[in-house]
């Protein structure tokens, strides 16, 4: 069995595919909305230096990634340990050398990795215009505005993904996610003024 098939098998016996998908969307959404909020905050503020914007966004992205890694690993490792223990009781054996024991160790790590990488990578993607502008590359929009645009696009994309998973109309699901982003922007505008 190749590595991919082996991992798929481990996810399958622990029913973890749904959990990974849920974590990816939930924490990815967290990352996108946090970047939207930060960039909106900078947008309503006056003339914040680009390096400050990048540092703040990067700090938030790393913090989200670390938070996702730690929280998911702690909770998943505890869940898997309990699952293995209950299974061992039922099987009246210690399941040494079994795929279940491997899964109890590997699955929490992989779930934590997804939970961590989803907000981190999505955040890094959203702040791409900030990096590009900082590197001297000319953009058709101001960097913070471009980052806000990318945040909206990412949130819409996550909504579409959820729509496809649930079998609903993708456009409706995407628009629903956008509505949440718009509400966030509106609140920041009201607070910022």
């Amino acid at each position: 069995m190749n590595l991919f098939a082996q991992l798929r098998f481990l996810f399958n016996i622990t029913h973890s595919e749904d959990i990974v998908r849920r974590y990816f969307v939930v924490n990815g959404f967290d990352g996108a909305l946090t970047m939207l909020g930060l960039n909106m905050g900078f947008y309503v503020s006056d003339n914040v230096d680009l390096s400050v914007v990048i540092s703040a966004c990067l700090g938030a992205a790393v913090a989200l990634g670390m938070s996702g890694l730690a929280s998911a690993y702690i909770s998943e490792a505890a869940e898997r340990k309990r699952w293995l223990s209950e299974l061992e009781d039922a099987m009246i054996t210690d399941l040494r050398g079994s795929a279940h024991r491997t899964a109890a160790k590997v699955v929490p790590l992989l779930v934590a990795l997804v939970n961590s990488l989803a907000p981190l990578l999505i955040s890094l993607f959203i702040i791409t215009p900030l990096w590009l502008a900082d590197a001297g590359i000319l953009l058709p929009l101001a960097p913070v505005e471009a980052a806000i645009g990318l945040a909206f696009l990412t949130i819409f994309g996550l909504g579409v993904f959820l729509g496809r998973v649930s079998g609903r109309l993708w456009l409706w699901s995407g628009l629903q996610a956008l509505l949440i982003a718009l509400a966030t922007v509106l609140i920041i505008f009201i607070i910022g003024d």
Partner: protein
Amino acid sequence: MVRIKRLVLDVLKPHQPDALECTKALARLGVDYRIKLTMTEMDERTQTLQIVIQGEDLDFERIKETITNMGCSLRSIDEVEATGAPGTTTES
């Protein structure tokens, strides 16, 4: 040289991996392996299986290893069929 041609095993299995996955894992052990898996009992967390494996020269150690790797527990070997292949010496 003795060759094992048929084994009937009594196995306790968790619900996952499912019967199809277990059968496929055992069938992968040899091109001539024929597997028949029958569920004889089921409770909330486990299933009791009777697994019949047939082939020209069954490798019991690999079969046992595959069963363990699937998280199953081999409870007993209920039937064995073996043949003495050419070259087998008979002692009196």
